[in-house]
């Protein structure tokens, strides 16, 4: 595992040479895809999903943070922080490499990240990541921005997370995926700066992972109504 991590660590500086970081002006941005309150399931959840980046056309440093905080239990169901380097590999796709720190309730995990991020034909935004560690997994996300009007936007999304190796401490069994499906309807109040939304969020764990989750006294599936805001600055 350590050498796998080092392999990924080598990839990162491999992206650096030949990049005129100083020659071009760097841009930065913060995109908060989700910051919401979820009602339903066992307990209400406060959740967020944001990307912050800094860099130029050739190389960008991206900080990605995702979290789900169960309010009643006062603990994090999910708390992931990724530090990634992103570079274009084609007109519409970037290659990414980095690390991910999981520090939610339960044992901490550290993974290396290799993946791609981009826009497919017909405007689907996808992320496909391989998390490299003692408990590797793959994650695939698809999102579509549907313009009902120029300000009212419906974003359906699907996320599939598949462990490749058992991680019993975290109730995860190999090849038993977790699926998250959402649909969020937002309204751009101020430019793209602040867009409140309402929506639904459904998550479900399948296969052996589901059994593990139920054995721990949790539900294997949950549905939520969500209310929150998208922000970009």
């Amino acid at each position, binding site marked *: 595992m350590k050498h796998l991590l080092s392999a990924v660590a080598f990839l990162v500086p491999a992206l650096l040479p030949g990049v*005129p970081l100083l020659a071009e002006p760097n841009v930065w941005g913060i995109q908060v895809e989700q910051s919401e309150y979820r009602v339903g399931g066992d307990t209400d959840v406060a959740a967020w999903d944001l990307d912050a980046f800094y860099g130029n056309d050739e190389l960008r440093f991206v900080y990605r943070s995702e979290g789900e905080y169960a309010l009643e239990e006062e603990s994090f169901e999910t708390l992931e922080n990724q530090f990634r380097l992103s570079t274009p590999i084609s007109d519409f796709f970037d290659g990414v490499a980095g690390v991910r720190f999981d520090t939610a309730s339960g044992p901490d995990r550290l993974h290396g990240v290799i993946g791609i991020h981009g826009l497919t034909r017909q405007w689907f935004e996808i992320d496909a990541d391989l998390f490299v560690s003692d408990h590797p997994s793959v994650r695939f996300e698809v999102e579509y921005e549907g313009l009902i009007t120029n300000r009212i936007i419906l974003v359906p999304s699907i996320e599939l997370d598949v462990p490749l190796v058992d991680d019993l401490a975290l109730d995860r069994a190999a090849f038993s995926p977790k699926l998250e499906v959402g649909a969020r309807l937002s309204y751009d109040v101020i*430019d793209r700066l602040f867009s409140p939304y309402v929506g639904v969020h459904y998550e479900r764990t399948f296969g052996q992972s589901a059994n593990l989750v139920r054995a721990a006294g949790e539900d294997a599936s949950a549905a939520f109504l969500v209310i929150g805001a998208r922000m970009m600055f």
Partner: protein
Amino acid sequence: MSETTTFRAAMLGTGLALALMGSATAGEYNLTVDPVEIDTGAFSRSGVGFNGTSPGPVLRFREGEAVTINVTNNLDQNTSVHWHGLILPYQQDGVPKISYPGIAPGETFTYRFPITQSGTYWFHSHSGFQEPDGAYGAIVIEPKDREPFRHDREYVVQLADAHPHSGDRIMRNLKMMPDYYNRQQRTLLDFFDDAEEKGVDAALRDRGDWGDMRMMPTDVEDLQGFTPLINGKGPEQNWTGLFRPGERVRLRFINSSAMTYFDIRIPGLKLTVVQADGNNVQPVVVDEFRIAVAETYDVIVQPTENRAYTIYGESMGRTAFARGTLAPREGMAADVPELREPPLLTMGDMAGHAGMDHGSMDHAAMGHGSMPKGAMDHAAMGHGSMPKGAMDHAAMGHGSMPKGAMDHAAMGHGTMPKGEMDHAAMGHGSMPKGEMDHAAMGHGSVPKGAMDHAAMGHGSMPKDGMNHADPFYAPGSGLRPEAADGGRFLSYADLKAQKPLYEHRPATREIELKLTGNMERYIWSINGVKYADADPIRLTYGERVRFKFVNTTMMTHPMHLHGMWSILDNGSGKWNPVKHVISVAPATTVYMETEVDAPGQWAFHCHLSYHADSGMFRKVVVEGGPDTASAAASMKSGG
């Protein structure tokens, strides 16, 4: 004291007083670059201006004058001033890192150069996004000879697209989300309208075609949400120019926008275009014209009625309008027209991106997919003596060929005598007027008179039967402008130099510049290479270079070469107009020629601010020419 002494003392005193006054003597001008407040009527923001205001002052020079301009930087960042359209030594051109290092905060730089031209020009900062933030002004140069037109009064009409966001913020937003500012995108509701109009299948296919390319037909204006200004005043503030009925008024239109093209008209008045980019053109009377970013047009109008007229400038994407008034008295206003429907790009604007459907005969499968036009030898295949009309293009899958795609010369039909082509037999018989796109067929630059109407069977055409296409837009382009109230819309093809500046001679070589870009990453470039990664373009003093702009993007780019004239090739031979900005529409190829007669190094870039900054820029190095070492020494800045 004796009388002489008293007199001398008085003279000395007066001389001293004059010297101490601080005001510039004739030929000397002072500019300061300042932080300013900008109020457009729709919003207020802080920006950058000259001598305390945005727009800055109108600098008035005389042809033949030697000017000295002291520019003091009162900002806390580097600045620069570029004299757009002026021919001068390259060290005076005002582009940081190409002409000079720029002007540091607190510093004063003194420009010194001779004025060797006349007309309407402008000046602006060439640092960061100071220009979109308000750092622009006008230059009016009085000619030494009489102009080939008369007017009783004149006004500078300087257009801008002021935006509440600062230039830096706009660039950042565009890099984060290229359609950040586009509120005219195709929505679900539009889809329902389309489906109702042309059926669900067609509507779906349309969405699918654009989706396949990951491009939008609404991508006309990258930047929306701006308030158009005329001389610093928004539409509500209504800049007004006075006239006495019957007078000829000269309007010096300058487009000092960052990103916006305007379609200008004055309902009720004909516009006689007499200058383009500062140079006299043979006068052409139009009802409306499109002014690209950084271009200037001088027009003469003659309002005869004792009423107000609205100067109306619709942005090319129809998201906003600039508005001013010409009136006999202050405080008057005329009707302000409504904005027209926004244009949509078509597949015609998508050079090479659109998928090609070859029908049932699958050339690609046979390995013939990338056959150049003309390579297919019909005679060899036994199709040689096919009677006219027998070749069924549709059945071969050539049915939906865009106009102009069929290369007659390549097919061996090149030297067809006039009148030989039997349109009816080819099934083109009942073509509605306006359908035949002459420019697309390569007949665009036919000299006037060459077209033999009688031989084509058009002999008895009623007057106004011919609907001229604009060869500077792609066939079927969604951007081709039309005069709002009917009438004539100015085309580049209408511009002819009144007095050619150079002898007409063939170019010594051709340089192709593909205008390229990646909208998703908001990267704009030339030949696929950004400025930061590119070698300079090297030219030799004394040559005549023919630049071929090939626009592979779906945006219109106003290309600006500093220091030397751009002679637009619109088929007028020696009358080709002499300009400094050449606008290239999507999917078109435009040629311009430059007599390389200015030594040094020069900027060459798309004048859309956020395109130039993201890489659509080059340095041009002119090798050879008269020794400028001594010139450089004498140009050293004072103060």
